[in-house]
Structures are given as structure tokens and as C-alpha cells.
């Protein structure tokens, strides 16, 4: 009885694995396949074509959105990585009052649903920009409005926590006596950090930065609530098109976004592997 139980168990596990991966991958494969479809009508195959890609690269809106996305991701990643790493070092290497409370607050942006963070930032920026405009009498074109700057600020706000969490794990992993030895030998905080800590936690920092970059590039909800005129990122542009209709053009944009994600995974795997060696 035991033996047949095991055989059936193994069969079940194998089938579950196959179905799970089919479930995960069929939509992606279909999406990519139909981005080369020559028919505008949804799921009818009309022959192979590159025309949706050409149309995409000729679309001013898509190109602007693309460069906006990259700009937001790069700037917010750089700021969040620096601030997140500094926070991580403070949390791991210092004891101070309210440390536990701050620890909890640091996790909140990760846990809180993005829509809640999105609407609270919408309300906050409306109040802030409104006050600034009234205080300085800014009107019309001179008035401050939500746009790429507010999006970048919002992305940094949720990414600081993600970077801090990743960097903290790599700070926990390494031997603290190395830092103490350096300081015993007369190195100050900066020299210890520059020559001991930084090289050792570099893989963690890169991992955190990559996560921040991906999250920023992927974010739709928080961007949706914090952006304004002229602040369209790629997910915002795609969402607008999806709501209007479905067309093979969206499949082409999606495929390009898919390839970007894949490249990021390959880079992250590369960093991880170098980390393990």
C-alpha cells in the first residue's frame, strides 16, 4: 500500500508542477506570439509581421513614455539606494532610542497595499503643491503640478525600505570583527566603511538597487496617483491603451517590457552568482 501511495503521490506532484508552469507561461507565450500577428482582430492568426513593432517605435507617445520610465527608474533607484544603504547601516550597527519603532515603520511601505500609499500621496501632494502655489502666488504655467518629480519622490519613498531590507541581510551575514579590527588599527568610520564594509556589502547593495529599479519600472498604481500632465510612464501609457481597446500594438509593447524584465533577472542572477563565489 505504501508503495502505490508513494507512486501516486509522485505523479500528483509532477502533474501539479506541469499544470502550474503551463498556467504561468501560456499567457506570456500567447502574448509574445500574437505580437507578430498580422491581423488586428484579437485571436485570429493572420500571418507573421513586424508591423506592430515598427508602429510602436514610430509612436511619439510610446517613446516619450519609455524615456520617462527609464529616467524615473534611474533617478529614484540612485536616491533610494543611497538612502536605503545608509539606513541599513544605522539599523544594523547602532543601538539608539526608538530603534524598534523605526524598524517597524521601515517595513510599512513594503507591507501597505500600493493603492493606499498611492491615494495618500495624491492627497499629500495636492495639499503641498496647492499651499506652495497659493503662498507664492503661482498661477497658470508657473504653478507647480504633479508630474515626473512627484513620481520620482513617491518611488524613492517605497524603494528606501526595499533597499534597506536587502542591504541589511548582507550586513547581518558578514563578520563584524573585520570592522572592529580596522577600527582597532586606527581607521575612522569613513575609512572602515570605504575599505571594509562597502566592498563586502556591494553585492547586497547591487541586489537592492536592481530590485528598486525593477519595482520603479513596473510600478503602475503609485505612479497613477502621483503623476500629472507630461508625466506619463510606460505602464501608464499601456494601461491607457488597454482600457481603450485591445490591439496587437499593446502586445508588442508588452513583449518589449517582458524582454526588459528578463534582462534584469539575468543581471540579478549574475550578481547573485558572483556573490556566492
Amino acid at each position, binding site marked *: 500500500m505504501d508503495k502505490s*501511495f508513494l507512486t501516486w503521490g509522485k505523479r500528483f506532484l509532477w502533474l501539479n508542477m506541469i499544470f502550474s508552469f503551463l498556467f*504561468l507561461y501560456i499567457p506570456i507565450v500567447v502574448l509574445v506570439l500574437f505580437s507578430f500577428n498580422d491581423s488586428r482582430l484579437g485571436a485570429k492568426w493572420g500571418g507573421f509581421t513586424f508591423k506592430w513593432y515598427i508602429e510602436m517605435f514610430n509612436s511619439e507617445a510610446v517613446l516619450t513614455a519609455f524615456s520617462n520610465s527609464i529616467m524615473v527608474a534611474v533617478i529614484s533607484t540612485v536616491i533610494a539606494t543611497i538612502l536605503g544603504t545608509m*539606513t541599513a547601516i544605522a539599523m544594523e550597527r547602532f543601538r539608539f532610542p526608538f530603534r524598534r519603532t523605526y524598524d517597524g515603520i521601515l517595513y510599512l511601505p513594503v*507591507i501597505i497595499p500600493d493603492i493606499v500609499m498611492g491615494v495618500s*500621496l495624491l492627497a499629500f501632494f495636492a495639499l503641498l503643491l496647492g499651499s506652495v502655489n497659493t503662498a507664492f502666488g503661482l498661477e497658470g504655467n508657473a504653478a507647480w503640478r504633479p508630474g515626473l518629480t512627484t513620481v520620482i519622490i513617491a518611488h524613492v519613498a517605497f524603494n528606501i525600505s526595499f533597499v534597506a531590507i536587502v542591504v541589511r541581510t548582507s550586513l547581518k551575514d558578514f563578520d563584524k570583527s573585520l570592522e572592529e579590527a580596522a577600527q582597532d588599527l586606527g581607521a575612522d568610520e569613513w575609512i572602515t566603511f570605504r575599505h571594509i564594509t562597502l566592498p563586502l556589502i556591494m553585492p547586497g547593495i547591487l541586489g537592492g538597487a536592481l530590485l528598486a529599479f525593477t519595482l520603479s519600472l513596473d510600478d503602475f498604481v503609485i505612479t497613477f496617483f502621483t503623476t500629472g500632465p507630461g508625466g506619463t510612464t510606460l505602464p501608464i501609457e499601456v494601461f491607457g491603451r488597454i482600457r481603450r481597446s*485591445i490591439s496587437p500594438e499593446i502586445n508588442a509593447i508588452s513583449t518589449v517590457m517582458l524582454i526588459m524584465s528578463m534582462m534584469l533577472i539575468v543581471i540579478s542572477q549574475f550578481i547573485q552568482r558572483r556573490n556566492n563565489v
Partner: protein
Amino acid sequence: MSTRRKSYLAFLLGPGGLWLTLFFIIPSLLIVAYSFLERRDGGGVIWQFSLDAYIKLFSPTGGAVINDFMLIFFRSFWWATLTTIICLLAGYPLAFYMSRQSRSTANILLFLVMIPFWTNFLVRTYAWKFILNNNGLINSMLQALEMPRIALINTPTAVIIGLVYGSLPFMVLPLYASMERFDFSLVEAGQDLGANYWQVFTRVYLPLTTPGVVAGCILVFIPVVGQYVVPTILGGGKVAMLGNILAQQFGPALNWPFGSAIAVVFMILLMFGIAIQFRMQREEEL
């Protein structure tokens, strides 16, 4: 702590702390404040204390005990529970299978789970719209087989498929992490002591992988309750979730105090939910 070390700490904590205070803590508190203020037509608030938002949220309408908003609350938490259960039922055996493979196979499978995890959520949800649409892939296939079309898009089924699809990797990854660490000599020890498969599973394997289960459930549950993208794209606004009414109140409806009240009640319920899950984990460990 020396003054020198104190100023170093201030330098490290200051900028990040300031950013989080300004752009996370204050906005969150602002929402709590807004929920007790009066609505201003055209968006924003009038700085005057009012409980209108909460009264609107909890008062019954049209003879029904539960109003539409409470119904959406209930629906969001129910669908999130359902999604978590489905992900757990598929994800637990999947993670177990992965953890029992050779290192290189396991790494490949892990990579395959991570690809969707890193892929744009909007794009993956759109892929399902393409499949489930009235002239989408499934209905085209049915038509080719001369079978009647079925309505899939804009139904609860479509939304739940999308929710499970988006969440499965979040369930599998923490489960795999806890299973990979599991020491199988414990199973042998149990069997040597006369336990059967079921007993070994419920008394040894399950308790030791519970941290992974709890982490996976939290990672799936919380984002799903607040989902906006999936019910919008696959539900077409016809099957609204909490995210939709939040967006509605801060968007076209322009009732910020009411939207804030929804967000506040939502966060309170969520905190309760997380506390319960952690409590369950602790009881499991005792």
C-alpha cells in the same frame, strides 16, 4: 556613544528618515485626518470636523443591512482569502516538488517561477484579457470547434484567475525557501519511531514549513485585497474591489473624506488580519 559616533548615526539616519517622514508618515496621517473632515466639491476637503464619511460607509441603504461599500469590503477580503487558498493548494506541492529536485534542476525551476515574479504585472494581467476576451483565444477556439461562446471577461472568474496568476510566485518563493532548509533526516527519524506518512507530514514537515506558509499567505493576501489593476482590466469595473472604490472616490467621485475613511477602515482590518495570521503561527509553534 561618543559625540563623533552620534553625529555619524545622525548622518546615516537623517536623510532616509526625513524622506520617509515627509513622503510616507505624514501622507498616511493626512489620510486619517481627512477621513474626519468635510467634503469639498471638486476634490479636497474643508477643514471642519465631520463624521459624514464614516456614517456613509457604515449606514445601511435602501432597506439592505449591508450597503454597497460594505459589500465590496466583504468581497475583497473573501476573494483575497480564496486566492490565498488556491495559491497555497497549488504552491505548496509545487514548492515541495522543487525542493526535492537536484540542485541544478531546482535552480532552473526557481528561475522559471521568478520570471513572472519580475515581469510587469500590468503586462501579465493584459495577457489574460487577451485570452479571456469575448473574441479572445478561448472563445476563438470554442468557435472553431463550433461550440457556443462563454462569457469570461468581466466576470468574477476572470478576476480570480488574474489574482491567482499574479500571486502564485509570491506564494511559491517563501515556501521553497523554508522547504529547502528542511532536514530530511527528521522524516527518517519519525519513520524509525513508527510514524506513517500522514503523521510525519502533519507532525514534522508541516510545522517546520509553517513560517514559509505564513510568509507566503501574507505576501499573497495583502496585495490582493487592495488590487486595482486586475479588477479594472479583467473585471471591466463591473466587479469592483476595494482598490476600485478607493480610486473612484479620489478620482471621478471627488469625495476625499469618504475615500480616506475607506482607506482607514481597510488598513485597520488588514492589521487585524495580519495579527491573526501571526497569532496562528505562534500557536502552531507552541
